[in-house]
């Protein structure tokens, strides 16, 4: 698997699938030049943070928080261990971009982490890698060994007095560990249950020490920000939405995969790059930012550009850039039923509104899908989401509720039809044909 297409690529420029991930390949693409420059030009941590702020790089894990600002929260001068964590626990349905970065450009992630650690005074780092992509966990360890041997990671990096130790840590199947404080608990060897904030990780993080957690794509962007300059990186995207972005396009398209395009690229262009809607069928709806983002009907989506602001205006979220495309063969009740099962399965069980609420959401949508819904169900679903949202420690409860609210808002007729006629508006054989599993050539 590789990145299938791009417009003005930066993060994936010069990659040949996963055949060019080694240190020598990365160096030949200009890799580790940014790190060398820091020491050659005596750039201070403040200089580095200023450049990242200029780039308006916003967190690629989903929240879109300005990275430079986040880095400035770290108490650099505080003595003792400080940690930098790379969040590669990519498990938001629809998202598979970090996998291709770890596969094709792991050294960009490593260089980004070392630069970030220098900027924040971090002494030790971990890359938390999704358990299911095991071969990439092993690859990252290999890449780390290369970087260590070359003096880019470890004690006295490139002969300076800056030291930073970096290791890989693997997950083992828990969506919630993508939440940053659950991830910290997980590294500490506990079940991944999110912590109450405040205190925020920058003051009380891993092992109680100051910690910053950034997404893989965010960190991989850092070397390029320093090499091309913050202003040029910003201009590669659009105002307030700096840089390029990897979009994972999945579902009913002809060429599902990752595409690197500038922030602000029209959705219609991205859809075209992904080969258009499968079989030339009609677009029905799109979830533009991973399963937690509200669904957007086709007409509205076709007017959007792919950036935080445009997608927010359409009532959804850019999230992690995971674009789930659904065509006219999709039963929206069944689609929501599957998502609701996911949140029910993955709720960590800590907060009652989420633990119980996600179960009820799934049970009710399941019975509607199976022809046993009652007219009051839609009101009950609405009320349930209101009782979950904003009443839990982390965002999983909100993430489970937003799909329900948006599916009901935009596709209420389909849910009502299911309840009244005890069957789906989209015939089952039409739904099955949508996947093309039995018709695709081997």
């Amino acid at each position, binding site marked *: 698997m590789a990145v299938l297409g791009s417009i003005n690529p930066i993060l994936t420029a010069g990659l040949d699938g996963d055949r060019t991930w080694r240190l020598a390949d990365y160096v030949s693409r200009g890799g580790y030049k940014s790190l060398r420059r820091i020491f050659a030009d005596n750039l201070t941590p403040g200089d580095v943070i200023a450049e990242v702020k200029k780039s308006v790089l916003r967190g690629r894990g989903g929240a879109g928080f300005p990275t430079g600002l986040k880095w400035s929260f770290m108490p650099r001068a505080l003595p003792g261990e400080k940690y930098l964590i790379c969040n590669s626990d990519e498990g938001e349905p629809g*998202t598979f971009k970090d996998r291709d970065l770890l596969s094709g450009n792991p050294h960009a992630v490593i260089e980004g982490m070392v630069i970030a650690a220098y900027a924040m005074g971090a002494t030790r780092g971990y890359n938390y890698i999704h358990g299911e992509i095991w*071969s990439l966990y092993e690859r990252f360890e290999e890449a780390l060994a290369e970087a260590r041997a070359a003096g880019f990671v470890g004690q006295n990096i490139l002969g300076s007095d800056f030291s930073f130790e970096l290791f890989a*840590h693997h*997950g083992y*199947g828990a969506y919630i560990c993508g939440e940053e404080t659950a991830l910290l608990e997980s590294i500490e*060897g506990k*079940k991944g249950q999110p912590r109450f904030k405040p205190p925020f990780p920058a003051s009380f993080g891993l092992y109680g020490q100051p910690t910053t957690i950034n997404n893989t794509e965010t960190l991989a962007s850092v070397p390029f920000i320093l090499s091309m300059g913050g202003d040029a990186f910003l201009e590669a995207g659009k105002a307030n939405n700096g840089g390029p972005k990897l979009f994972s396009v999945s579902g009913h398209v002809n060429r599902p995969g990752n595409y690197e395009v500038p922030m602000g690229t029209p959705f219609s262009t991205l859809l075209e790059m992904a080969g258009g809607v499968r079989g030339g069928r009609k677009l029905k709806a799109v979830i533009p930012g991973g399963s937690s983002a509200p669904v957007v009907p086709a007409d509205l989506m076709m007017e959007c550009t792919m950036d935080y602001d445009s997608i927010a205006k359409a009532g959804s979220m850019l999230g992690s850039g995971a674009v789930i495309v659904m065509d006219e063969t999709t039963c929206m009740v069944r689609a929501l039923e599957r998502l609701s099962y996911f949140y029910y399965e993955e709720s960590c069980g800590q907060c009652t509104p989420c633990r119980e609420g996600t179960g009820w959401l799934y049970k009710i949508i399941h019975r509607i899908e199976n022809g046993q819904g009652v007219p009051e169900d839609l009101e009950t679903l609405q009320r349930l989401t209101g009782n979950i949202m904003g009443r839990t420690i982390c965002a999983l409860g909100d993430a489970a509720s937003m799909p329900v609210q948006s599916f009901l808002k935009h596709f209420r007729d389909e849910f009502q039809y299911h309840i009244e006629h005890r069957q789906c508006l989209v015939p089952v054989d039409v739904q099955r044909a949508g*996947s093309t599993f039995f018709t695709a050539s081997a």
Partner: protein
Amino acid sequence: MLTPESLARIDREIAKYPVGQQQSAVMAALAIAQEAHGWLSPELIEEVAVYLGMPPVAALEVATFYNMYDLKPVGRYKLTVCTNLPCMLSGGVDALEYLQKKLGIGLDETTPDGRITLKQGECMGACGDAPVVLVNNRRMCASMTPAEIDRLLAELD
């Protein structure tokens, strides 16, 4: 029950964490133990806990929390199929049904010869490659068609 080879691998994991934080290696240690023994028995979990100097119940908490640990015996090959929405749209559910029919077993069941256990998985971060089948938590098989699934089954002895 932990073999010297497993212990050596666990030691390498412990070395990644600051002194006194060896509990951080529990996820890796349990994965290593499972790889060697096929599944995590209560005795094995306790042995891992003792080795890491943590209460056995804390290791059990971890083993029960993360989906990829098996707390019951599984077949020689565990096939996990992602059926989440993006995969469902591209045949994940169809692939699981096809496997069930081929093997004559249901979800979370093992073939009578002890060869294959079938599981449904949640997002593996590979939605663009759907349908995806994960073999023994390690090998990810992508873009599975009926013919590819037949080939995979023939290959797993």
